[in-house]
């Protein structure tokens, strides 16, 4: 049956911090919005995240981080995407970050940053408006 293309999103949690409640909540919100979510679990390296994103042919990677590793890990994901010629995959981040970090991350090419102030509805809405299946 010819059908509409489905948005595919990878939710990943780089770094060493030990729980993924936030990532699971956002994964469920995406599913309930009709997206296909590939959830890869904890402790992923940027290399692993990019490799999985390519094999899964996702439209977007949502990175979540609490432990302050974002400053290095998020841009590193972008860098590897570029190396692999996969910079068309949009990268977003979520977590608690100082203002100046948010500006720096966006400058590095992270398309959007969600903070605890963003509601799930707002996040889903942003994805619906900005992520089109490639």
């Amino acid at each position, binding site marked *: *049956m*010819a*059908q*509409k*293309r*489905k948005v*595919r999103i990878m939710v990943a949690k780089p770094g060493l911090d030990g729980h993924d409640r936030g990532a699971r909540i956002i*994964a*469920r919100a*995406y*599913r*309930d*919005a*009709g*997206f*296909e*979510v*590939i*959830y*890869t*679990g904890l402790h*992923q390296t940027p*290399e*692993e995240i990019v*490799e*999985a994103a*390519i*094999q*899964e*042919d996702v439209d977007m990677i949502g990175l979540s981080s609490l432990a302050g590793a974002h400053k290095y890990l998020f841009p590193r994901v972008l860098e590897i995407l570029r190396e692999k*010629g*996969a910079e068309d995959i949009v990268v977003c981040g979520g977590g608690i970050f100082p203002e100046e970090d948010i500006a720096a991350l966006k400058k590095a090419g992270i398309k959007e940053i969600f903070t605890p102030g963003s509601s799930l509805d707002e996040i889903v809405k942003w994805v619906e408006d900005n992520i089109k*299946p490639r």
Partner: protein
Amino acid sequence: MKSTAEKVVAGDIRAVARLIRDIDDGMPEIREVLKEIYPYTGKAYVIGITGAPGAGKSTLVDRMITHLRKEGKTVGVLAVDPTSPFSGGAILGDRIRMQRHSMDEGVFIRSLATRGHFGGLTQSTRGAIDVLDAMGKDFILVETVGVGQDEVEVVKSAHTTIIVVVPGMGDDVQAIKAGILEAGDIFLINKADREGAEKTAGDLRLMIDMDQEKYRKGAWRPPILKAQAVADKGVAELVEEIHNHGRYLFETSDDIKLGKKRVRVREELTDMVEKRILEEVINNITKTAEFDRAVDSIVSGDTDPYTACEELVLPALGLSE
């Protein structure tokens, strides 16, 4: 510029990933690509793994990959999880258990959602199997939850079908649907560390051995194995049995082999014809101005859906007087 098919055959990961997406999304362009790659298929050994939710299928697949890689084989994985019937979305989490293989170039893992399009899962999974086969993967592991008809259909087309059960669920063995039981080439009792593994094995043996006549005639007698996938216990034995079953398949006489192939090809072609007819006929009816007008008329109360349906369908099938 290389064509998509050429890239796939050359093992280009992005091309492979994209083609599987297009197959899953039902893009019409894929038909030509699938035709082009078909001559490069037929070399991979396909293993289906099915069983109840949470039985340990993904953990098992993870371990099987390790064993097959040690043998120097390349591996493709298709992990199917259910689509939410409410939103059409899905959380595909099988990859979590297979993380350790993500940097291994000899392994390609893809998560698929059931999506609930009728007969579509079988179609798109078969398509994806062909793609991984054409890209040169030696083994293709397909994981599905053994609940829906479609999911079972998928693993049935594998060379070897493994049914994963866990002990201690009371009626677990009785709960295995007849169709699934017949499809099993190997039964694996996972989480054998749990109480009741012996009893489950006994119950399974009874059910499988019912038809002794079949085995006297030389049919494959499904072994019942015990494993603890998390601890990598019993997985080497499982892989060994898969190879045994493979040898059984390929050592049976050419007549039987060809006969089996005929049966499989006939089944797959029938499926494909069914799906194509549905697609063409339904598009012919629903993508018309007439259809839109019928919707309007029902909404405005000028007609009822039963009449409208008849008026649309009968002429399209040449059945109206």
